């Protein structure tokens, strides 16, 4: 009941945010430029259109996840809304969960919208410059879906960081740092555990291992290559990554709720 109320409140807030409205409009406009840009490549136009579209969807979701995740709790504290909201008979756990759910829901809607536009863009490109390979519509959808999960997880992490911080910049840049480390961690980990890696000092290798296990492995969510080229892959991977997403997000949100419930709202 109260979760529902808070969820509606936060969705209203997001929808009425002028800056987000502008960002959404710009991204929808830019994605329609994909067919024109792809045409410049002269060859593999369709493949390029798919790559571009997916990167574009990914980038849009990244911007939304970071900007919303690192501000949605912070703005309440910064503008002293917390006094009026958290003095209502609502518990803080529900408050944090509603924040996350609102961002997650917005990411789903944004992915669906920008994703649909990218479908149109890809369709136009492939129609004008057909390739030998048919367009992997199903895989493109899966790639966008996994991307959405990835950015939901990033938003959860950003919310966790804001529950301990009072400034805007700290959570924002910490989330970016975690995202970059988590996106690169697979390669760094593989290097550190490989033959070549033995030349690096033991401490660095241990640190890499620790970071690898703590920081979420964002590269696991990347299915872009399979969406562009018909590369065979194990469908079980999708369930593994989804499960990984669920567990990691649940842990992150539990930590955020635990910390925020003890936070002093001075």
């Amino acid at each position, binding site marked *: *009941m*109260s979760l529902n*109320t808070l969820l509606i*409140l936060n969705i*209203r*807030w997001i929808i*009425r*945010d002028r800056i987000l409205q502008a960002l959404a409009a710009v991204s929808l406009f830019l994605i329609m430029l994909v067919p024109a840009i792809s045409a410049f490549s002269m060859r593999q136009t369709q493949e390029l259109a798919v790559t571009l579209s997916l990167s574009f969807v990914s980038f849009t979701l990244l911007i939304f996840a970071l900007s919303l995740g690192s501000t949605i709790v912070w703005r309440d504290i910064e*503008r*002293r*809304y*917390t*006094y*009026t*909201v*958290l*003095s*209502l*008979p*609502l*518990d803080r756990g529900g408050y944090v969960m509603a924040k996350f759910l609102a961002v997650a829901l917005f990411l789903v809607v944004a992915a669906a919208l920008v994703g649909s536009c990218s479908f149109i863009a890809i369709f136009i490109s492939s129609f004008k410059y057909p390739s030998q390979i048919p367009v992997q519509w199903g895989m493109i959808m899966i790639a966008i879906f996994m991307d959405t999960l990835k950015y939901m997880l990033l938003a959860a992490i950003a919310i966790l960081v804001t529950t301990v911080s009072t400034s805007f910049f700290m959570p924002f840049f910490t989330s970016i740092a975690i995202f970059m480390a988590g996106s690169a961690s697979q390669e760094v980990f593989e290097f550190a555990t490989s033959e070549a890696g033995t030349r690096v000092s033991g401490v660095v290798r241990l640190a890499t291992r620790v970071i690898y296990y703590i920081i979420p492995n964002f590269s696991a969510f990347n299915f872009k290559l399979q969406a562009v080229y018909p590369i065979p892959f194990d469908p079980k991977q999708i369930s593994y990554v989804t499960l990984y997403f669920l567990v990691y997000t649940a842990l992150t949100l539990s930590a955020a709720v635990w910390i925020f419930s*003890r936070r*002093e*709202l*001075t």
Partner: protein
Amino acid sequence: MTFPIEIESLAKTYRGKKRMQVEALRELSLNINQGEVFGFLGPNGAGKSTTIKILMGLISATAGSARLFGTEVRQAAARRNVGYLPENPALYDFLTGREYLSFVGKAFAMTDGAIAERSGVVLEQLQLTDAANRPVRSYSKGMVQRLGLAQTLLHEPELYILDEPMSGLDPIGRSLVKDIIRQLKRQGKTVFFSTHITADVEAVCDRVGVIAKGKLQALDSVDNILRSGVEGYTVQINGGGDLAAHGYTQLEEQGGMREFLVPKDQFNDFIAQVAVEDGKVELIETKRKDLEEFFLEIVKQGNVSA
């Protein structure tokens, strides 16, 4: 018996950067009775908002405990029967006044019908009906304050905790707030409000607690304070002999009229003396310390002892 507010040995120490500590509240104990209007009076930085934030579960006490209607303030359920107005409230500015009240009503589990009906009533009461469908972003400071008050009234709770409810309001707004507090009292509701203005306390309160430097310095009914504040009387005499010779202080003389300042405990003797000297009492006025002097004195004592 459970009180609307029970505060037991409450203490709060803020820990800032560089191991800086502020003892904002020390050993505060206080019970607020059902149906009373209680003024929590203290200068800036006394610890009023700190106390109220602990009551509303926004910050945690360093020591001691507090309950609202018997429920520990840490639990969200303690706030179910409370209307709270923060100091200089900030309300979601992307909502309209009516939308905001509707959000608050839902948080208090009111039905849609009750929300619609009560919103209309409280908006009218706080003269916000015309602005009800405008975003709060466009409200003036006083309007936000009034919407904050409307929020406290919306679900008709038994207890009202108001942090400086009169601040930021013009004289009309202030008198409106006083009227609302009096009305709540008539309905048997309990009101606990903080202020640094003694006149506000004198106007509406049954009881007052004076807080300074995080300590409760005085706790009494407003009537008692005003009565005990009587220092003496100024008496105008027509005729009579040389009263000054008996040690009474003469303030003025005009024609046959003389005015004396008589301490409270010498009043009977003085009147007797006037009768002996064949004088005639024309006018007696009570000379009393008002609440303001009482307050200033207590705060000064607090500063010396602290």
